[in-house]
């Protein structure tokens, strides 16, 4: 019975995504969608996937991560690097992009495991600050990474482009702070939605799987979980790596949507990690559907506020604080309890029955 209810709940989530896709596609097909929204479709998918994947770490695993953008960064750069090298060899954009996405997921998962092994030994806020540190390290190193390709193969340097020592035909692919320029524009809304559904499928199925229940048991009571023989490190690492690889996929989608890829504080720094965390918290910790919806709203909101020009970000911050207060404060909880539709109906019924 319980199982059935969970499944119905999941179906609603998939349904929302599919309905969203169909509506957007129709609007797009009939030319009723503004350029702004057309441009926002892929970023929407990116942030929805990011929110879903972070919710796995924060909601299901119960660990606060402030470095999630670091995995996105790794995925973005690895996939864009692959696409740049293979631009001429694989001409079919869909095949090339699928391989790029797989690479981004694998590379990000490897980073997730490497970082997860030391990080997951820590607790609470200390874990949070270490993930933040890893995110910043990744950003810093990408900013001084120079990779070029010539007839002899691939050259790597951590100093500057000149020390790559490339031949005449050499081409710089990752140029330090200047990043990667000219990534093929392979991301489409359809691929984005497919990736989102895959992410949802992975996370939702994980939650109801044996491993997922083990992870949640660890979250709720680590000592009890350990005492019944659950291998804590293994399951924690598993969830963390899955979360990282999904973020890597989002990174691939991000990288192939823009012609330029730089690791700036704005897009891959701790600011972005925190922004994703905002989606998760606002949507409800552990509530996957909430993450998707919150990510969508908070991505669209600053764009809709453009009319306010100078006051745009100020209003955005006020709305953010307001939403948090409305969602979590004890006063608002009372208010909502009083006026929630379910309660009103119930009240109505009881009144009737009494009569």
């Amino acid at each position, binding site marked *: 019975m319980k199982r059935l209810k969970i499944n119905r709940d999941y179906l609603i989530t998939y349904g929302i995504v599919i309905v969203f896709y169909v509506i957007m596609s129709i609007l797009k097909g009939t030319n009723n969608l503004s350029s702004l929204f057309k441009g926002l479709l892929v970023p929407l998918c990116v942030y929805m996937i990011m929110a879903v994947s972070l919710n796995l770490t924060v909601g299901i695993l119960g660990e606060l991560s402030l470095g999630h953008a670091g995995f996105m960064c790794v995925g973005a750069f690895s996939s864009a690097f692959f696409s740049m090298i293979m631009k001429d060899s694989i001409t079919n954009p869909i095949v090339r992009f699928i391989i790029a996405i797989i690479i981004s997921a694998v590379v990000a998962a490897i980073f997730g495991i490497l970082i997860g092994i030391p990080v997951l030994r820590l607790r609470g806020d200390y874990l949070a600050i270490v993930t933040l540190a890893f995110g910043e*390290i990744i950003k810093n190193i990408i900013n001084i990474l120079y990779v070029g390709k010539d007839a002899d193969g691939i050259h790597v340097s951590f100093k500057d482009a000149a020390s790559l020592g490339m031949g005449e035909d050499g081409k710089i692919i990752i140029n330090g702070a200047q990043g990667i320029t000219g990534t093929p524009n392979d991301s489409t809304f359809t691929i984005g939605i497919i990736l989102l559904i895959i992410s949802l499928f992975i996370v939702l199925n994980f939650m109801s799987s044996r491993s997922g229940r083990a992870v949640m048991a660890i979250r709720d009571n680590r000592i009890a979980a350990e005492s019944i023989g659950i291998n804590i490190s293994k399951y924690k690492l598993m969830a963390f790596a899955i979360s990282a690889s999904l973020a890597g996929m989002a990174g691939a989608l991000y990288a192939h949507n823009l012609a330029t890829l730089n690791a700036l504080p704005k897009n891959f720094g701790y600011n972005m990690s925190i922004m994703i965390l905002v989606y998760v918290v606002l949507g409800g910790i552990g509530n996957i559907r909430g993450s998707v919806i919150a990510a969508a709203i908070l991505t669209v909101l600053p764009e809709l506020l453009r009319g306010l020009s100078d006051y745009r970000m100020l209003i955005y911050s006020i709305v953010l604080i307001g939403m*948090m207060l409305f969602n979590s404060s*004890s006063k608002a909880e009372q208010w909502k309890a009083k006026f929630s539709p379910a309660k009103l109906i119930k009240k109505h019924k009881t009144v009737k029955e009494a009569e």
Partner: protein
Amino acid sequence: MSFLNYFINGLSLGSVYAIIALGYTMVYGIAKMLNFAHGDVIMIGGFAVYVCTSSLGMHPLIAVLISIVVCTVLGITIEKVAYKPLRKASPLAVLITAIGVSYFLQNLALIIFKSDTKLFTSVISIPLISLADGKLVITGETIVTIIACLIIMVILTLFIKKTKAGQAMLAVSEDKEAAELMGVNVNRTISLTFAIGSGLAAIAGVLLCSAYPTLNPYTGSMPGIKAFVAAVFGGIGSIPGALVGGLLLGIIENLSKAYISSQMADAIVFSVLIIVLLVKPTGLMGKKMSEKV
């Protein structure tokens, strides 16, 4: 001689981190929240002094006092409006609200003070000390910052150990419910913590801007994060830990810039932090966490 110079430069940067970290650690220790808006309160403190001295022509000392008042009032207001309603909510919700407050302060400052960088005239008029024919230089700001750090640390420690309000803070930080049962007014204690933390932020702002004299709406955010790292480094919640963490962070940052690579200084600092936390999971001077069953 170069090494000594690098070391002293690191010390002066570290002392600024330390003084910001004190505010972080204090709020964290009692309210158990990461106040991401702390760096932006520092920026407001800097602007308050800037307006008082440059535009209104006040004496620097009066300006500093006004700035402390402004920041304290600001801190109390923020606490009342944005954090207090969430006292019973999850710590994450408060964290997100703090981020909202941080954006709000930055963008408010952007509208009021515009985006161009202002130059801050140092409020410290102690001349620099020059040793060994000018090869070794210690600025007045460094000396004042370190002394201020020590004084604040001593006062805070005394305050917490000797006064009733301080004891109440300690009680709240140990166990909120138990403290309430013992008759401690938890809400008032937390508000007081924010007031003190914000007042410290004003002092930190003045010292930060005096040592590194530029000021714009984003001045506080990066030193704020660095100081937060310093506070964790030293063991968050520990007052001497904030001082040690801040000073060490500044020194490590400058020495790695000098001897390893200036491009990778950030990565090195963060790597050291990670290693320290792996060896001592609660920071250098943090309390050992006991496991509750």
